[in-house]
């Protein structure tokens, strides 16, 4: 058990450094917080799509209302912000991948962190292009 916060020691309260804004003290922590904050973007996109399928299930009028909302300037602006957040999520996901996956060896040599990150980013660009190609092929 930790000690109570305001326990009196020798007639005075011991100094405790405040934790408020702790992550702004170091650029490393700031990057960590931005990385964690990308979860808000991923959640927001999931909810936007959920609103879409809920509208789709309610029929044509509801779907067209969802489409009209997606075309509003505020939605376009928010989606541009989401795009930036999602790109940062993608970048940071592969940036920390060398630390989150087990060590990999090829020919008895450990694969370097930079190589793993590079392969991940190449895969992300390839997946994005493949998805756009699919949309392009399916266009009316």
């Amino acid at each position, binding site marked *: 058990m930790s000690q109570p916060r305001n326990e009196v020691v020798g007639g005075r309260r011991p100094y405790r450094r405040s934790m408020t804004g702790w992550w702004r003290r170091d650029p490393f922590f700031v990057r960590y917080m931005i990385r964690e904050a990308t979860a808000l973007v991923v959640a927001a996109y999931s909810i936007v799509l959920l609103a879409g399928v809920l509208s789709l299930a309610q029929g044509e009028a509801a779907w067209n209302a969802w489409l009209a909302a997606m075309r509003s300037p505020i939605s376009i602006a928010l989606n541009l912000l989401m795009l930036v957040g999602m790109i940062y999520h993608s970048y940071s996901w592969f940036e920390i991948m060398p630390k989150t996956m087990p060590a990999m060896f090829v020919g008895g040599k450990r694969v370097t962190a930079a190589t793993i990150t590079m392969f991940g980013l190449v895969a*992300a660009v390839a997946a994005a292009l493949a998805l756009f190609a699919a949309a392009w092929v399916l266009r009316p």
Partner: protein
Amino acid sequence: MKRSNAPIFWGLFGAGGMLSALLGPMLVFITGIAVPLGFLLPREQMSYPRMLAFAQHWAGKSFVFVVIALFIWHAAHRIFHSLHDFGIHGGTLAKLLCYGGALVVTLLALWSLLAVGF
């Protein structure tokens, strides 16, 4: 010893993180920017009959479900573990809100994708 349920949440977090890292940016671009503006892709790309057909096909249905569900489970897990950094030392309530929210989103997606028919 009681088996931990943590690996399931970490697994969903990892799968959702990977899927959103690979497809997230282009999905946002297509559905949120390109099609609404008619930029590079036509606006009719997401017209009602086309999207209904897409959601009725087993492949389209599965794709949309997997994206919605894995994205929200990834986010819920990450947000739950970040609460600590903001001085919210999450107990059962925080866990219930995060994972319960993800469950509600998953079930609503499942329900609407089944409701559009096959």
